[in-house]
């Protein structure tokens, strides 16, 4: 009899935990959806992997995603507030990994919606691109500064350049700073405020993307 009571208690607790978890998932999904009406995004026709050096070489064992990055990328579509903003499921069998001299690793992973998700570790976020900037400007980048521009810690500018790029410089008040390109990725730290990303293309042309002043605090 005692065993029966213990067994039913275990079942009750297990059932309660399952209901609680389901309710939690529903709450997160509801909070993420928001109330505004959604429009359908027009998908870019460009496949970013066709514009990136990392994908012009064969995939090797060292390109396998880490478990942490795979989990992060796998959750993006599920947590997007609308289907229009969902990047698609990561195609992990096509991932690429680029590790730079400063220890920064770029994980590049195409998705089922022909987007490219980029996770930078350590300390970086994971986001996805349709490759529009890569096609139009030759570069897509992220600026990150933990303590605000011009403060103690350096400002990091990192990103990807198209296969047509021969070099990349980042301009700031102190001059232009050459970034090292490794398989189409770059990462550079600056002590002053970056103002532009300048891409020298193999065909001799130069493309420049202005980095605007951040909004007032």
């Amino acid at each position: 009899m005692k065993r029966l009571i213990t067994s039913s208690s275990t079942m009750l607790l297990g059932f309660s935990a399952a209901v609680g978890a389901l309710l939690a998932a529903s709450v997160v999904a509801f909070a993420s959806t928001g109330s505004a009406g959604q429009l359908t995004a027009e998908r870019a026709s460009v496949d970013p992997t066709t514009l990136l050096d990392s994908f012009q070489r064969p995939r090797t064992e060292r390109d396998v995603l880490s478990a942490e990055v795979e989990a992060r990328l796998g959750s993006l579509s599920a947590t997007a507030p609308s289907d229009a903003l969902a990047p698609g499921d990561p195609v992990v069998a096509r991932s690429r990994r680029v590790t730079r001299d400063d220890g920064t690793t770029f994980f590049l992973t195409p998705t089922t919606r022909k987007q490219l998700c980029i996770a930078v570790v350590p300390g970086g976020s994971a986001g996805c691109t349709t490759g529009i900037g890569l096609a139009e400007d030759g570069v897509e980048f992220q600026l990150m500064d933990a303590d605000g521009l011009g403060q103690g810690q350096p400002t990091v500018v990192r990103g990807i350049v198209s296969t047509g790029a021969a070099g990349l410089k980042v301009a700031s008040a102190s001059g232009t700073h050459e970034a090292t390109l490794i398989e189409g990725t770059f990462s550079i730290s600056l002590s002053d405020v970056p103002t532009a990303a300048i891409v020298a293309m193999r065909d001799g042309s130069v493309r420049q993307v202005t980095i605007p002043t951040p909004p007032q605090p």
Partner: protein
Amino acid sequence: MSRSRSERHSAQRAYRRLPVLVIALLLVLVPPTVAWAGQINYASGTNGVGGTFPTSGEAVRSYNQVWHQSGYYWWVWYLHGSSQTGLVYDSSNPTKYPGGSSTIAYAKCSNQDDNSGVTWTCQTTTP
């Protein structure tokens, strides 16, 4: 006499199971409460280039992000008094500062050039 003993036994058994019922109730109620208290949408809209959108109050935050159409640039940051921390400028989706605010702060997002017509949503956390 026998019936009274049986009733007393049933009452004791029910009393013994009370903690189990309380735990079961907590298992149902606590996870959604924690989830609700975690992530919030503090702004959402369509287009609005140049607009800056803050949270309604200050709190210690775990991250700050905006979901938007890829290829358009957005800013996110924390505001502590008059200083910015956790500043990110990015065109990938989501644009996210993955770190926390350490101390209480407003979370903010700002639309640099997103006129895509796709609804964007700024999210952060509350304790």
